[in-house]
């Protein structure tokens, strides 16, 4: 019997999923717990002190979509970047480079694998936080939220792919994470509405693509946002497209992978 021949990218995706699933305790449960701690502490301290959207939304409720999105973004980034750096350092990346996988195949498998991890963790955080804010289940615009979750996870998965290919050591990767990803996420309005910021910082926030991801995602939950959701969608989609094209061209040139 001749074995069925198909595209190898599905197997690479399967491998990427299996990789984090086998250590789900660390890749899914741990980030869910972290987000839960954020929620408990910040809501306890700030619930009665911070007013968001002119008091139309409780702070704890406001915080949840931010935390969900932050988990989606951070875990999407962590998955593609750590998978690649581990493969590079242990040398087993060669197993992926020897088969006839095209640049688009590699891109699709790593990015979709990382998106799934981000979305699964995000869903986990959302489910856990529902115990604290059950009203969030009745979202006015769930498809807007989904669109931003998909685009946001794709962007961070792609960034993770770039960082994983670029980094040669774990500390270079953590520098990328600590000096780029973390500040952009924390300063994007996860914990606050940018309308509470001084004008200068409000303006600066508008140059942060992460702000649009989180603001647009939050619109899905409350029908309220700092900027019109359509504007956010266009900006986020454009970022996603540009980064994808950049990454595909890096893969085509074999940047850092094929010398």
């Amino acid at each position, binding site marked *: 019997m001749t*074995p069925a021949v198909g595209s190898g990218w599905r197997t690479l995706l399967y*491998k990427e999923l299996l990789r984090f699933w086998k250590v789900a305790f660390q890749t899914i449960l741990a980030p869910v717990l972290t987000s839960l701690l954020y929620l408990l502490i910040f809501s306890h301290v700030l619930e009665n002190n911070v007013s968001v959207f002119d008091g139309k939304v409780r702070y704890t409720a406001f915080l949840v979509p931010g935390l969900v999105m932050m988990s989606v973004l951070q875990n999407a980034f962590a998955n593609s970047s750590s998978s690649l750096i581990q493969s590079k350092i242990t040398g087993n990346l060669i*197993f992926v480079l*020897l088969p*006839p996988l095209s640049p688009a195949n590699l891109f699709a498998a790593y990015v979709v694998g990382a998106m799934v991890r981000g979305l699964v963790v995000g869903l986990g955080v959302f489910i856990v936080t529902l115990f604290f804010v059950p009203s969030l289940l009745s979202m006015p615009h769930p498809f807007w939220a989904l669109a931003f979750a998909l685009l946001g996870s794709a962007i961070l998965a792609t960034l993770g792919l770039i960082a994983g290919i670029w980094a040669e050591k774990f500390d270079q990767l953590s520098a990328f994470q600590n000096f780029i990803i973390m500040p952009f996420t924390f300063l994007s309005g996860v914990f606050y509405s940018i309308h509470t910021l001084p004008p200068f910082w409000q303006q600066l926030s508008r140059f942060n693509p992460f702000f649009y991801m989180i603001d647009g995602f939050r619109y899905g939950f409350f029908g309220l946002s700092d900027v019109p959701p359509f504007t956010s969608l266009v900006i986020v989609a454009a970022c996603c497209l540009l980064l994808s094209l950049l990454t595909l061209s890096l893969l085509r040139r074999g940047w850092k992978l094929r*010398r």
Partner: protein
Amino acid sequence: MPAAVEVVNVTRRFGAVQALAGIDLEVQQGEFFGLLGPNGAGKTTLISVLAGLIRADTGSARILGHDVIADYRAARRALGVVPQELVFDPFFTVRETLEIQSGYFGIRDNAAWIDELLHHLDLGSKANANMRSLSGGMKRRVLVGQALVHKPPVIVLDEPTAGVDVELRQSLWAFIRKLNRDGHTIILTTHYLEEAEALCGRIAMLKAGKVVALDTTHNLLSRFAGLTVRLVADRIPALWQPRVLRQEGGASFIGLDRHAELEGLLAALRTERIAIGELALQETDLEYVFLKIMGAPEAATAPMVMRR
């Protein structure tokens, strides 16, 4: 019928090092071909060019007529590479590793062939063991399995027996020979010249990124119809010291071009009053040829091993 491997004027430079300095090579389908040379000669770089892991600065390479860049899908489908480094993915079991590798080539439902591979590589009992738990020799055999999982017509083995114990080495070679009989082209690099001599029909020797010899193993051996003297003595006559190929277990191996030269060696031993402990004559082996071609000064430091 296209050549199994065709390399045309391939060069590659890494900074100041000219790793490949214009390689031309053709390996026909069905050959058992040896690629020999000291460390740094460019063997692994050349293999990496064939596999698409390293890009050549100039020149081109084809596998069964498929260019490794322009037609990389067909080229990589036709090629199986056993890498030199002992790499593995610690997340998976042996069977998962082989199934995943098979899937990368787009081949699913490959269980029958994977079972056969596990059997031939003597990994049947370890099929469900995690890669981390395997010994070095077993990991090496999994690497061989991964290279063969898509039944490539051309198989490249880069130092496949390093770290594999003698018994397993024999069964590995029996398997590779069977693949060769079944029509697979085999390209082998090894540090064990004895293996190359026994297995390879044709051999290319690389030195500093160039092919310095390319012929059938038979012709290479007869080109240097010389002898090796195995001599155990207190010391070696001063004039003969440059002729010492290697020293091993208290014996010195001295290369002779003709039987007549033996006269001179014996005379020197007599003149310098050196007592002979043991003396034996051996026919030319590949190591002698290798050292001749590579040139004594460099070859003396080359870590090529001959196991007797």
